[in-house]
Structures are given as C-alpha cells and as structure tokens.
C-alpha cells in the first residue's frame, strides 16, 4: 500500500513539474520521430564528390562518369588544393585525385587518392565505402579487360604448345633414329678394317711374279716358236725322209697346220704378249692403285680415327640432345598441363574470384531496423539515468524529505518506490517508442516479444539503479544531471555507436566488452533482430543482471551512508 502511494506521489510530483512531464512524454516521441525520419532509408543521398586530375583522359573520365552515375554529385576542381579546401569548407564530402598520367600503360601503377574529412567521423566511413565501391567497380572492369588479354595469350600459348608437341615427338624420334644410326656408324666404323696388308714384299712379289710371267711368257713364246720350229723341222725332216712325193699332201697339210699353228701361235703369242703387256700395264696400274689404295687406306685409317671420335662425340651430343629434347618436351607438357589445369578461365571470375554480396541477416527495411536496438537502449540509458537521479534528488532535496525521514517508513522503501517509479516511467516510454517505431517506421520490434521484453526490462532496471546511485552520490540536480550525462556519454563513446569497437585499443576493447550499454544493445539486437532465445544470450544477460546486483548493493550502501550522515 505504502509503496503504491509513494509511486503515485512520485509520478504526480514528476508530472506536475511541466518540464519533467514534457521530457517523459514528449522526449521519447521526439527521439523516435527524429530517429525514424533520419534512419528510415537505406540510401546514401547527397554525397558530394570533388575530383581533380592534372589531365583528364579516357580512363579518369570513365571513373568520373561512373561516380556521376552512382547518385553522387560530382564537381571537377582546378587543383588539388582547391578540392581539399572544398572539403574543409563543407562544399564536398570527399575529393578524388587522379595521379598524373593516369592511364593503363605498361608497368605503370595508377593511384587514386581520396581526401576525406575524418572529423566527420560518422560520414567518412559511409563516403569511403560508397566511393570505394564505385571506384572498385570501374577498376574491376579494367582488370577484367586486362585479364582477358592475358588469358587469350595463355590460350594461344597452350594451342601452340599442343601443336608443337608432335614436332617435339618427331624430333625425339628423329633424334633417337639418328642416335641409332650414329651408333651403327660408330659400330661399323669401329669394325671397319682399313689397315693395309699390302706391304712391300707383296708388291715385290707381285713385281717378281710379273717378271716371272713376262719371263715365262717369253720363254713360252720362245719354246713355242722353238716347238713350232722343231715341228716344222720335223715335218721337213719327215718330208725329206719320206720323199717329196710321199704323201706330200699330208705333210703339206701338216705343214700348213703347223704354219697355221705358228700363225695361231704367233697370233696367240702376239695376243699373249699384248695380254702380258696388258697384264703388265694392269699390274703396274694395280701396283700403282695398290699404292694409292694403300695411301688412301692410310688416310682412311686416319680419317676413321678422327671420324670415330667425331661419331663418338656425335653420339654423345645426340644423347645430350635427346635429353634436352625430352626435357623441353616435359617442360612443354608441364606448361601445357599447368595451362590446362587452369579451371577458372572467365576473366571476371579471375578478377573477382570471390563475389561479395552483402545479404542482411534480417529483412532489409531501413537503417532504423539495424540501429533500433542501439537506439532504444540509448534512449533507455539516458532516460533511466536522468529520471531516476532526478527522482532521487527531488525526494532527497525536497523539504518533505525530512518529514519522510521522520516517518516510520524505512528509507529503503522510498528508494524502492523511486526505483519502481523510474522503471514504470521508462517502461512507459519504451512502450511508446516501440509502438511508434513498430507502427510508423516498420522497425522489427516485435520479433521475439518475450525475450525482448525481458532484456529491455533488465536494461531499464540496470540504468534506473545506476541513475539512483548517481542521485544518491550527488547533492544537487545540476551536478547529478551532469554526472548522469557524462556517464551516459562515456558509455556511449566506449561503444560501437560512433566508431567500431574493433578499431579501439585492445584494452579499451576489453573495457567496451563489459560496457553495460554495449551488452544491453548486443543482447537486444540478438533477441530483437535475430530472434535468439534467452538461453542463447544467457551469458550477457547474466552480466547485465550481475551489474544490477552490484548497483543495487552500492545503492543500498549509499542510502545507508546518507542515512547515517
């Protein structure tokens, strides 16, 4: 009963102060209205881009055109300085400077410099992102073209290698055949006996034989003549003996025969003589030829020796050549295999082997969807901190506080009433925000109502307790409000709302990980957007509840200390 009366009193006192009532009722409406209008889109409107190039060419112009086509307002500047100055004066958001000789030439790197104003921290990342996307798109086109050229060259190489492969096989075969023949030649040459066995004795014997032939031919001729003479003489003698009438005809016939024989012999002798002469001539010629042959054989032997070495070298060279040919063939095969092994032959796929397409894990509606968990925790944080500390100080500094103290009601009951009042008011504000966001800005607020409500309530409890502690520690509304705003701001700065936590120093990242604002918004994002159950966020939720317990203890101690004072 007392508690209800106290809560009623707190709400009445707070609402009857017009400014407080306005803050409580209109504050969240205003916040959600502004946030909704600001974040209820997914576009990056009105990004103004300045460009500068000492000499615009087709390449730089193509980039500028691409930027113009990407919703950006593009303005060309006469110098880099004026372009950068335009950022400082707020005329443009970023300045794109193309390097001199910005062209696709051999071994020439092209650079595009972005000048941005990092003091506009919230804008710079967006500008950089969209600019990079735009430039990357054009750059990718160029890369695709260049890669296509390279691929065509590779393809031609592969075709050529394939075609030349048969030649290499033929070359190898020929080489092997040559090697085989050379080996045969080598063998034959090795086995070729070109040593002259016609020594001088042979030639002398041949000459002696020739002399003997001549001699015996002469002697034979003489003997034949003599035989014929003898035969003639015999015939004559026989004729003489037998009379001239005795069978003269037979004798005559014999004589004629002998004459004929003689003639024949003479003819034969002449012919033999001619033949001997010829023999002699031939013999001489043969001797000469033998001599020549001998000489030639000698040279041949020399030549054989030299050529044998050459053939050996040739065989070796052929061996080496074969090895080289095989090696080259292998290399060619390997190159071809490598080229054949290239599976990705689409230039676009090579330039961008991994296509990044960003798919929202929740249904994409507007930025409000994404920032809503952070936004509502932010509103809860500041509202709870301010409302609860104001309630504490209103009670503490109220003239009626003394009378409250004199009453038998325990101080913790007043604290409990303030706590519940603060929680009720912030819950009321949260409901307003959730309702408006859900109805008018289509924010995904009712994803998992049960878990989301519990998380929201935990966050409200936490920051209400924190606000009450601030109210207990400070004595005036001004200092307490200042402290609440400072603490809220500190929690906000050490979160990922302004800059990503990952970009902070590691120790600050650790601190940020324990930041109740970060914990609250993280858990709420998980439950609200990803529909995670309480079990899945139990660790962070436990941390939040742990903070609640700690703050509750600290608050109790502070109240007791004030009571003692």
């Amino acid at each position, binding site marked *: 009963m*007392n508690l209800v009366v106290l809560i009623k009193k707190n709400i009445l006192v707070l609402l009857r102060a017009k400014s407080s009532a306005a803050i409580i009722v209109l504050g969240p409406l205003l916040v959600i209205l502004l946030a909704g209008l600001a974040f209820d889109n997914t576009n990056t409107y009105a990004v103004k881009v300045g460009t500068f190039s000492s000499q615009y060419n087709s390449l730089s112009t193509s980039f500028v055109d691409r930027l113009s086509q990407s919703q950006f307002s593009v303005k060309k500047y006469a110098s880099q300085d004026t372009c950068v100055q335009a950022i400082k004066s707020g005329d443009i958001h970023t300045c794109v400077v193309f390097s001199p000789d910005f062209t696709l030439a051999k071994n020439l790197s092209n650079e595009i410099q972005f000048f941005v104003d990092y003091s506009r921290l919230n804008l710079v990342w967006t500008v950089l992102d969209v600019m990079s996307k735009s430039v990357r798109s054009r750059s990718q086109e160029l890369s695709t073209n260049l890669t296509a050229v390279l691929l065509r060259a590779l393809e031609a190489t592969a075709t050529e290698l394939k075609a030349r492969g048969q030649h290499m096989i033929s070359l190898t075969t020929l080489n092997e055949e040559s090697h085989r023949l050379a080996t045969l030649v080598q063998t034959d040459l090795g086995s070729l006996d070109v040593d002259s066995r016609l020594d001088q004795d042979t030639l002398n014997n041949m000459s002696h034989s020739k002399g003997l032939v001549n001699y015996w031919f002469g002697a034979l001729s003489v003997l034949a003549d003599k035989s014929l003479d003898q035969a003639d003489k015999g015939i004559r003698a026989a004729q003489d003996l037998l009379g001239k009438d005795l069978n003269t005809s037979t004798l005559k016939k014999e004589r004629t025969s002998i004459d004929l024989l003689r003639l024949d012999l003479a003819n034969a002798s002449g012919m033999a003589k001619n033949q001997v002469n010829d023999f002699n001539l031939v013999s001489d010629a043969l001797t000469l030829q033998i001599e020549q042959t001998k000489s030639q054989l000698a040279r041949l032997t020399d030549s054989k020796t030299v050529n044998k070495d050459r053939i050996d070298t040739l065989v070796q060279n052929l061996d080496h050549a074969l090895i080289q040919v095989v090696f080259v063939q292998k290399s060619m095969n390997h190159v071809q295999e490598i080229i054949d092994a290239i599976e990705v032959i689409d230039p676009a796929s090579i330039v961008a082997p991994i296509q990044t397409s960003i798919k929202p894990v929740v249904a994409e509606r507007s930025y409000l969807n994404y920032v809503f968990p952070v936004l509502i925790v932010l509103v809860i944080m500041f509202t709870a901190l301010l409302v609860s500390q104001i309630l504490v100080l209103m009670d503490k500094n109220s003239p009626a*506080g003394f009378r409250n103290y004199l009453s*038998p009601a325990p101080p913790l009951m007043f604290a409990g009433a303030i706590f519940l009042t603060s929680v009720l008011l912030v819950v009321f504000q949260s409901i307003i925000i959730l309702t408006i966001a859900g109805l008018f800005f289509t924010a995904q607020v009712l994803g998992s109502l049960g878990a989301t409500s519990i998380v929201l309530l935990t966050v409200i409890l936490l920051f209400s307790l924190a606000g009450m502690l601030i109210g207990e520690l400070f004595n005036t509304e001004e200092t307490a409000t200042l402290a609440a705003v400072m603490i809220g701001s500190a929690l906000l700065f050490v979160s990922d709302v302004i800059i990503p936590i990952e970009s902070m120093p590691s120790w600050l990242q650790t601190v940020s990980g324990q930041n109740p604002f970060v914990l609250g918004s993280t858990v709420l994002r998980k439950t609200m957007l990803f529909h995670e159950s309480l079990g899945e966020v139990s660790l962070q939720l436990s941390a939040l509840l742990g903070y609640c317990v700690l703050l509750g203890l600290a608050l109790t101690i502070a109240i007791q200390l004030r009571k003692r004072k």
Partner: protein
Amino acid sequence: MADAALKNYVRQALVRGMSTPDVQSFLVNSGWPKDEVSAILNEQAQELPHNTVLKVEGLRKTFGKKIVLDNVYLEVEKGEIFGIIGPSGSGKTTLLNLLVGFYQPDKGDVTVAHSKKFFSVFKNRQELKSLVGFSTQKPSIYGKLTCKENLTHFASLYGVGLHEAESRAHGLLRVVGLDGNADVLAADLSGGMQKRLDIACALIHDPAVLILDEPTADLDPILRTSMLHLVREINKHGTTIIMSSHFLGEIEHLCERIAILRNNTITEVGSPDELKRLYSRDFVVHLQTVRKDYASVIAGLQQQRICSSVERHEQSLRVRTPFPEHVLDIISASVHQSGEKIQFLHVARPSIQEVFTALVKQ
C-alpha cells in the same frame, strides 16, 4: 519567590541526573532550610515520572570541532506547551532535530515516555516516530501535491489506511483553517497557509508530542496570531507542544514553561514568571503624564537611590526598581507638586524579552 526558585533548581538538578542526597546536601550547605529542601525533593521526585513525556539527558552534539550543544538536560511535561528560546545559532533547531532523533548525539540521550516507560529515540527510532510530530521552520511538504494529497501521503507513511487518512486530512484541514483548499497545490498556498499545512502534516499521525521549529517565522502579525491560536487549539486536544521561536513575547504568552538555550546548553527552565522572578528582582514602572515633564520625578527618584535605572523616553518615563511601592510614592508626590496629571501608569515585571536580553548580556 524563593520557593519557586528552589523548586526550579531541584527540578533541573534532578533532570540533570544529580542524586537526591547530593542535591539536598548542596542546598542545605547553601543555607536553605533542610525541611523545605526535603519536602521539595520528595515532591519533585514523585512528580517527574508521572508528568514527563520527554527527557533530555546530558546531550552533546558537535559538528566537526564545533560544539553546538553540551550537557543539555531537559524535561517536558505531558500536555504543556514548552518553549525553547535562545540567540541565533545557539542550537535550537539542532536540539529539536535531536529530540526527534534526526541527528545522532555525540553523548547523552533523548527518551520519550511510552507505555509508562522511557525509550531512547535513538535506539527505538522506528517505534517512537509515531509519538512525535515535527513541523520544521520551512514547511516539509510537497509543493506539487495538493493539501489533501500531502496529508494522505504522510498518513500512509504512518500506516494509516486511505479512508482513515482522508478522514483525518479533512479534519485537520478544518483545524488549520485550510478546509477550502484541500485540492489546491501546496506550492500555490501562501506562506502562512503552507505553515499551517505543515503543522497539519505533522499532526496527521496524531502524535503525543508536536515539535514546532519557529512556527511564526516569516509570518505577518495577523498570521502569527492565527498560528498561535492554532497552537493553543492543538494543545487543547492534549498534544504536548515543544516549540522554539524568536518572538519571545509569543513564547511568554503561549508557553507554560520556557527553556533558555545559551552557551551551548540549557541554562534556565521555568515558567515565564519563574524566570522573571529568578532573573530579575526589578519591577518596571511605566509613567506617562500630560505635559511630559518628568524632571521633578527623575530628581525625586535619583535622590532616593532606589532605582536600578531611569530611562526618559520621548513620551514616557521607564523606571526599573526592586521597590515599586516606593517609586510609586515618589512619582505621586512629584506629580502632585508639579501640578502634572498622570495619563498612564503601569507597574509590571520585566518582559521575558528583557530577561532574555539580560541573560544573554551576562
């Protein structure tokens, strides 16, 4: 006169914790008759437990090194209006805050009678809170709540049910003269009305003792009169009232007993007349004649040397003397001789204001 002073001394000595034999021994040695001392001691010893509703014993309170109160003994009787006076900064508000247990004393105790026993307000704070009501110098109310809401709110803190609280609120608003303003925000009330609302809030739980800290401060004379009337009305209902005020005239006329707080302690306690008698032997004779010629009167008085002081004011003559009868004789004779006619003549004890001033000067 001596009897009253003796009674007062005995009462204070006993309240301060002196034993009866010690008090008796001291007084007899000082020349007081032993029988008279014994009789008063017996009388006081019997009276104390029955009438006392609140006792302060050896209270000491310091803020840092500054001693605000020291060796304070006090006793408030049931049903009386008890006044505490003292110079600014003498510790009146601190003493009142100690009486309700708001401050923790460095030494001593404050006890409140409850069920025929005395309980320390510091050790039994929660139990005794319902016995005491406190109206601070500046109203302890919520400006953003209506008169009725303030009353029902504070009633609820004392465990009074909503229906009963509304009934009491209605009655108290009538008592304090705010029955037409039940639904008016407290912040919209005048200063005097806020004071009265504050007193109503202090009474919402029907306390046995009501402590009022400067109830008439910042009020105009009409509102002050109204407030004093309200205090009397409340007291008529049996509520013991302890109040402090700068307006000593009000205290003198309203309070049955007064405590004077100076030099960090209660130096004197008694009824206004007792204090006057105890601390001033003089009477004040106030004379005003038609022609305003007081030369012969002054000469006659100075000749007799019976006056403590003779002050010539613009229109009147003010004579302080322990022998008022003689002074009246001299005035009568001088006026008769000079042919003057007496326009106004008044003989009285000096006011509590004068006693207080004299004491402070001491």
